[in-house]
C-alpha cells in the first residue's frame, strides 16, 4: 500500500491521576470513579466498559467518596466538606451542600438509596435525606472523638458502623446512639503505632469486616464485641474493601498494589459451617490500591498508578464475552491531542494547561523500520495555563494552526496563534455561550468553530480575521435532548456536521441551511469516534463494542460496504480488542482508506479489499512483509494493522504519506508517580 513517514511523538507528558474511589451502581451497569485530581468518570459495563462520561476536576474539590443514590443519582463528598451531586447529563458538579462537620472522609448510601451518611473530621456521623433536586440534612448521630474514616450501613438500614483510628463503633440509626465501641487492637499487646481502620463493612448477619493499616482483614461479632476471624493479608496497610452483594466474597486492596479476594467457603465440602478464606491474590497495580468495588461478576480495583483493573470472576460468568477478560484501563477513552495538519502543530491537553508543539522534520527517506535523521527538532512553542481552579474540559487547534480554543466548566477561551507560533493573542469578546463546552472542532477551512454543548445543542461560531468571532447559529435536535454532545465531526467541504450526544443519538446537520438533516439509526452502544469522509461524505462511526458502520449522509442510509460488513461480521480478534477506537481519519489521496486507532493499534482499513474471516489472521502485516510481491495479493485483506506504537494516545495523517503518532509509554509516567511502598526484594 505504501510507506509512511511516521512522526513518533513521546513528549506528551500526560500523567493520569490516581484512582481515589469507586462506586458500582446498585443493580445498574455503571461504575463511578473519582480520581485524586477530583475528576469523576462513569464507565458503562453494558458498552464494553466505555468511559461514557467524564466530569473534569476542580482544584478545590477532592472526592473522598462516591455514592449512587435513588438509582442513578451520583453524589460525591470530599475534604472540602461539601456533598456534591453530579449532573450526569450536563457533565458538571451540580449542587453542593455543606456537610457541616469539617472535611468529609467517608460517605455511604443506605440500602434503598434514600439516605446518605457522612463521616466527618470532627467525629460526627450525619444523615442526609436525598430529596428531588438535592439533599437535606436530617440529623446527627452520636459524635465521638476521632475522624470517621469509613462508614457502612447495615443492609436493613438499622445500624451504621463507623471506623476511625484504633476503634470502630456501631451506631443505632433510629436512636442515634453508639451501641458498641470496639478497639481493634484491644487483644494485641503493647502496640505503639496507631491502627487506622481504612475500610469497613457491616454484613447482614451482624458481622463487621474491618481493613486496617496493620494489613489485617478482621471479622467481628459486634453484638458480643468479639473478634471472630483475623486474616493478615499484607505486611502493609489494607486500604480498601468491598463486599459482594451476596456477602460471600470480599475484595481488599493494599498499599503494596496487591488485591486479595476472600471468600466465604464451607469448612467441609457440603458442610454448613463456613469460614472466610483468602483465596485469590492479584498484583495488577504498582501503587496503593485506594479503591475496590465488587460487581456481581468481577473484582474492580483502582490504584494510585491510575489504573482501573476489572478482573472477571470466571466462576460467575456464563458465556464468553468482552467482560470475561481481564481489563486494564490507564488512559482516557477520548482524545487529549489535536493536530493542525497543515501547520504540523500538536496541541496537548493536560488537566490545567495546554502545550503547543511543532513537529520536527527530515529530508531523508528510508526503508521500513529505519529511523531517519532529523533536520529540525520538534519545538515546544507555547504552554498555556488555564486560569482559575477549574480543569479543562476540551481543547482544539485549527487545521491551519492559527486558532486555538479550550473550555473549562465556566469559561471558554479562544486564542489567535501568531504565524511563527510563538505568541498567542486572546480573542476578545467571545460570545456568551451556555457552558461548559464538551468538544471543540474547527472546520476544515478554519473559518468556523463548532462548540458541543448541553441538551444536544451545537453552537456554530464564525471566526473573523484578524482575531474575532461571532455566534452564527445554534443547532439543536428537533425532538430535543437532555444529554450533552460529546463528539463532533464536520465534513471537509463544510456542508455537514455530525454530533453525538450522551444518549448515543447521532444527529447530522446541514451547515449551509443550519437545518437538521437526519438521525443515524440508533444503535444500542456508545459511539467512541466518528468522522465524515472528505469526498463521499460518508459518516464512519466506531462504536464502543468495536462495531464499525458507514452511513451515507446524502442518501441517509447505510452504505453497501457497511451492510456487507454487518452481514459478514467483523473479525473475532477485532471484536475482542481491549480499547475503543478513539479517532478516525481519512487519506484524501486514497478514498477507500479509513485510518483508525485505539490505544494498542493503528489500522488502515482498505474498503477495496476483501474482509478477513475468522480463519485468516487479522494481524498479517509481518507475514506479508516476508512474502514476495506476487504472493502478497492473495493474502491481502481490508484490515492493515500496525501494533508498533503503544500505548497510542493519538494518530493522525499529516499528509498523504506522513503520519503523526503520540505514544505515552507506561514506564515514562510511572517514574513520575510517587514512589510506591518500599518492598524488600531479595538482593536489593
Amino acid at each position, binding site marked *: 500500500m505504501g510507506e509512511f513517514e511516521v512522526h513518533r511523538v*513521546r*513528549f506528551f507528558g500526560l500523567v493520569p491521576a490516581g484512582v481515589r474511589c469507586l462506586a458500582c451502581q446498585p443493580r445498574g451497569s455503571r461504575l463511578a470513579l473519582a480520581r485524586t485530581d477530583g475528576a469523576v468518570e462513569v464507565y458503562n459495563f453494558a458498552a464494553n466498559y466505555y468511559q461514557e462520561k467524564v466530569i473534569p476536576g476542580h482544584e478545590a474539590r477532592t472526592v473522598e467518596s462516591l455514592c449512587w443514590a435513588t438509582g442513578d443519582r451520583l453524589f460525591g463528598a470530599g475534604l472540602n466538606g461539601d456533598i456534591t451531586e453530579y449532573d450526569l447529563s450536563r457533565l458538571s458538579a451540580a449542587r453542593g451542600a455543606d456537610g457541616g462537620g469539617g472535611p468529609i472522609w467517608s460517605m455511604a448510601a443506605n440500602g434503598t438509596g434514600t439516605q446518605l451518611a457522612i463521616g466527618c473530621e470532627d467525629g460526627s456521623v450525619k444523615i442526609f435525606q436525598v430529596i428531588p433536586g438535592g439533599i437535606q440534612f436530617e440529623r446527627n448521630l452520636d459524635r465521638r472523638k476521632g475522624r470517621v474514616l469509613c462508614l457502612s450501613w447495615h443492609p436493613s438500614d438499622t445500624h451504621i458502623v463507623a471506623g476511625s483510628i484504633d476503634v470502630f463503633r456501631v451506631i443505632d440509626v433510629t436512636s442515634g446512639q453508639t451501641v458498641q465501641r470496639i478497639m481493634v487492637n484491644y487483644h494485641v499487646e503493647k502496640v505503639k503505632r496507631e491502627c487506622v481502620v481504612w475500610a469497613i463493612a457491616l454484613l447482614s448477619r451482624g458481622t463487621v469486616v474491618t481493613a486496617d493499616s496493620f494489613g489485617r482483614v478482621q471479622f467481628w461479632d459486634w453484638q458480643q464485641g468479639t473478634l471472630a476471624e483475623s486474616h493478615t493479608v499484607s505486611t502493609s496497610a489494607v486500604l480498601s474493601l468491598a463486599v459482594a452483594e451476596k456477602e460471600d466474597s470480599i475484595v481488599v486492596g493494599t498499599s503494596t498494589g496487591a488485591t486479595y479476594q476472600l471468600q466465604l467457603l464451607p469448612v467441609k465440602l457440603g458442610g454448613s459451617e463456613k469460614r472466610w478464606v483468602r483465596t485469590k491474590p492479584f498484583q495488577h497495580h504498582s501503587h496503593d490500591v485506594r479503591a475496590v468495588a465488587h460487581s456481581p461478576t468481577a473484582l474492580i480495583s483502582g490504584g494510585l498508578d491510575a489504573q482501573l483493573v476489572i478482573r472477571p470472576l470466571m466462576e460467575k460468568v456464563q458465556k464468553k464475552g468482552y467482560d470475561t477478560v481481564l481489563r486494564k484501563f490507564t488512559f482516557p477513552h477520548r482524545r487529549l491531542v489535536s493536530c493542525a495538519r497543515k501547520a504540523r502543530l500538536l496541541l496537548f491537553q493536560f488537566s490545567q494547561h495546554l502545550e503547543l508543539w511543532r513537529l520536527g522534520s*527530515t529530508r531523508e527517506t528510508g*526503508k521500513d523500520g529505519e*529511523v531517519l535523521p532529523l533536520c529540525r527538532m520538534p519545538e515546544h512553542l507555547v504552554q498555556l495555563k488555564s486560569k482559575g481552579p477549574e480543569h479543562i474540559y476540551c481543547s482544539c487547534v485549527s487545521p491551519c494552526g492559527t486558532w486555538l480554543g479550550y473550555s473549562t466548566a465556566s469559561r471558554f477561551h479562544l486564542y489567535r496563534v501568531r504565524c511563527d507560533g510563538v505568541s498567542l493573542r486572546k480573542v476578545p469578546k467571545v460570545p456568551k455561550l451556555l457552558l461548559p463546552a464538551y468538544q471543540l472542532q474547527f472546520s476544515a477551512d478554519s473559518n468556523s468553530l463548532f462548540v458541543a454543548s448541553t441538551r444536544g445543542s451545537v453552537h456554530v461560531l464564525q471566526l473573523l480575521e484578524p482575531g474575532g468571532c461571532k455566534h452564527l447559529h445554534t443547532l439543536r435536535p428537533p425532538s430535543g435532548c437532555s444529554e450533552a454532545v460529546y463528539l463532533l465531526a464536520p465534513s471537509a467541504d463544510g456542508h455537514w456536521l455530525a454530533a453525538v450526544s450522551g444518549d448515543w443519538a447521532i444527529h447530522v446537520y446541514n451547515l449551509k441551511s443550519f437545518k437538521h438533516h437526519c438521525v443515524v439509526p440508533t444503535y444500542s452502544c456508545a459511539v467512541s469516534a466518528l468522522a465524515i469522509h472528505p469526498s463521499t461524505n460518508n459518516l464512519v462511526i466506531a462504536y464502543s463494542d468495536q462495531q464499525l458502520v458507514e452511513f451515507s449522509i446524502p442518501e441517509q442510509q447505510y452504505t453497501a460496504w457497511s451492510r456487507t460488513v454487518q452481514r459478514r461480521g467483523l473479525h473475532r480478534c477485532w471484536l475482542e480488542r481491549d480499547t475503543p477506537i478513539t479517532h478516525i481519519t481519512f487519506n484524501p489521496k486514497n478514498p477507500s482508506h479509513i485510518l483508525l486507532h485505539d490505544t494498542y493499534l493503528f489500522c488502515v482499513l482498505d474498503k477495496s479489499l476483501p474482509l478477513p474471516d475468522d480463519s485468516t489472521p487479522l494481524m498479517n502485516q509481518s507475514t506479508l512483509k516476508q512474502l514476495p510481491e506476487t504472493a502478497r495479493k492473495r493474502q491481502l485483506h481490508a484490515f492493515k494493522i500496525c501494533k508498533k506504537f503503544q500505548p497510542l494516545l493519538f494518530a493522525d495523517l499529516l499528509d498523504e504519506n506522513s503520519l503523526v503518532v503520540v505514544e505515552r509509554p507506561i*514506564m515514562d509516567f510511572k517514574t513520575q508517580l510517587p514512589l510506591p511502598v518500599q518492598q524488600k526484594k531479595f538482593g536489593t
Partner: protein
Amino acid sequence: MAALCESFTLRGPGPGGGPGMSLEPGPGPDLVLLTERGRAATLFKISDQKPLGCWSVKHGQVLTCPVVCNFETHEYIAVHDDRVLRIWKNEDINLDKAFKATLSADVHRIHSLPQGGPVVLFKGGGVRTLDVLLEAPQQEIENVISDEAIRWSGAFMESQQPVVVFATEKDGDFFVYVQKPKLDSLHKYRLEPQESSKPLNFTAYLKNQTVTLLCLYSNDSVYQVLIPLQQDTEEEEQILPKSLLLNLSVSGSVLKGTSLVVLDKDHVAVLGSLAAPDKEPKECLTIWNTKFQTLQTSKALPLGTSGQLWCYEEKFFLTHGKVLTVIMYKCETSSLAAAVGKLKDSQTPGVSSFVNWDTLEGEDLVVSFQSQESVALKSESRMNLRSRRSNVAKVQPENFSVGQLLRNLKDAPTNVLEKELKQLMSKTQTPDLQAAIGSVVTALTNRCKANPRYYPQSFLLQIVETRDLSYSLCPDLMPIALEKRDFYLLQICLQRFPDIPEQMIYACLKTFLSISDAYLRMTEVDLDSVICYIDVEFNNKGVKTEIVENGFNAELDQDTCDTKIPRQSHSKSDVESCPIGPHRAALLNAILHSAYSETFLLPHLKNLPAQQVILFLRYLYYLYVKCSEKVNTTLPGVRSPTINQIIDWMCLLLDAHFTVMVILPEARELLSNLHKFVRAQVRFYSELNKIEGSLRELQRLNHLRDSQTYSIEVLEII
C-alpha cells in the same frame, strides 16, 4: 533400580509346602488364594498375614488344579478329580454343598482374567470360557494336542478377547499354542530347539498385540520368544525363533534358575541356586535388568525353596524352608546410571552386582568367565578345569573369538601374552571392541591376581590412556592398581573413568591421604593440575602478604582480632602454604574431579580417620582460598579442581565428620578460620548482589533514556 525390601511370613510351617502348592490372586487387593496339597484352598490377607477363609474337599477327592477367583462375581472356582467343577462364594462354608458341574473332559487349569472371566484349559488343549462351559457342562471338548503334555499355560485379554497361550512338550520338542476361545482360532508353533538344553520355566506378558514368552533354559539363560497374535495365515507349525535375553551368570558363578517372573519391561526376577565352581550352591532370589544385563539385587534363601515363585502386587511369594514367605520389592525405571552405579559388594554375601557389557556370544561369555575364575584357582585344580573347558569348547569349535583367544593365552608366558594382546587390540575392528578390550584388561588383571609378581604397568597404562575404558568394563583394574600402589594408573583412571563406584573413590582417597610423603616423592604422578598454583617453596613464606585480594581483608583481620588468636600463627600454617606436597595434591585433585553420588559416598567417608579428614580439609581450605584469589574463582592449570568441586567436598567432609570435628582440638582452629573466611565471602557476595541490583536498574534506566522522545521513522503498510 530394583531392590528387594523387607520380607515376612505369610503362613508358618504347616502341613503343606512342597510342589503341590499354588498361589492365585484373591478377590481383591491384598488378598491371595493358596491351593495346597490337593485338598484345601485358603484365602489370605497379605498385610495382616492371616487367613480369611479356608475351604477343603471331602476326603477322597483331590483338587487337581489351582483354585481361582472370578474377579467379576467374586466366586471361587475349583476343579477336583480332574473334571468336577465347583463354584462357591465367600460365605459358603461347605464345599460339598457348593454348585457342582461334571465336565466331559479333564481340566488342566483355569485362568481367571480380570475383565474376561475365567477360561478353562483342558488337558487335551481345548479351551472354553466358563460361561460357555456352564451352559452345557457335558459338551464335547476337542482334543487339540495328541500326546503332548502341557508344561505351562497363561491367559491374557487382547482387544476384549481372552487369549490362552500354552506350551507343550513331546519327546524334548516344545510347542506353543495360542487359542482364542471366542474366535475359535488356534495356532500352533514350534519353539526353535536349543541344543543340549531345554526350557525349565516359562512366563509371558502381552504387549502391543504380541505375547512375549520368556523361557528359562537349562543352560542358565533366559530366551525371549515373540508370538504375534494378529496371525491370519493358517500355516502348519511355524517355528518361533528365540533370542537371548539374559545370561544368568554373576562374575563366574552361574545361577541355575528354577522359575522366573516378569516385573516390568526391563526387569525379571529369577529364583534359583547360585552355583560357583568351588562353593556350595545356594538358593537365592534375584532381580535382573534385561536392558543393561545386570544383576540388580539378590537375596539368599539359605533354607531352600520349592522352586516356585509367584509375584502379585509388587510382592514375591515363595516357600522358604517350610514357610510361605512374602518379599516386597521395588522396581523403578532403569537408567544407565542406576544400573551401573552399584558396586560389587563383596562384604554382603549373596548380594552380588555385576556389570556385563560384553556383547559376546552367550556360550563364549560363560567360558571366558570360567577361565577368569580358573586363573585365580590353585594349580592343582587346573587339570580338572581344563578338561571342563575343553568340553565346553567342543560345543562351538568353529567360533574363534576374543574369548577363545584369551583362553588359549591363559597359560602363555608374559611376553607372549602381551604381544598377542597388543596384536589383538590393533586387529579388532568389531563393534564389540570395547567389550574385547574389557576382556583383555580382565585377562591381564586375572593374571596379576594369579601371579603376584606380574604387573604390566606400562601396558595397562597404555590401554587406559588410549582407550575409552570404564570402570565397569574392568572392575578389577583399579583394585589391583591400588594394591600395587600404582598411583599414576589410579590417577589416570580417576581422571578418565566415568563410573567409578564411590567405594573405590573412597579407597583411593584413603590411600592417597595415608601414604607417606617419602614414598610419594619417588612415584611418578601427573602434576599438571597442581603445578600452576601450588607453592613448591615452603620456606618462602614472606613473599605472600595477602590472603585474598578481594577487598575483604579488613573483615578477616577484624574477625581474627575477635578470637584473639595472633594472626601469624594460623595464617602461615593453614592458609598461605599448601599443607601437602604436590604429588599428593595432584592425586587428591584427581579424586576431586571424579564423579560421585553424595548418598553413596557419605557412608564410606565416615570411615576416614580424623587426622586424614583434617589434612584433606586443610587442603580443600587451601584450594578454596587459592580460588578466591582470582576474580573468576578458578585455579590455573589443566584439570585443576573447580570451586564447586572444592566446596562440595568440603561440605561432604564436614557432613561426614561433624561430631568428630566438634570434638577434635586440632580441628578447632581450622574450622574457625574456615568459618571466618566463608562468612567474609558470604558478606562479600551479598554486597555484590546489591551492586548487581543497582547496576541492573541503571541499565534499565539507561535503556529508557535511549528511547528518544521524538523520532521520525518509516513505516510500511502493505
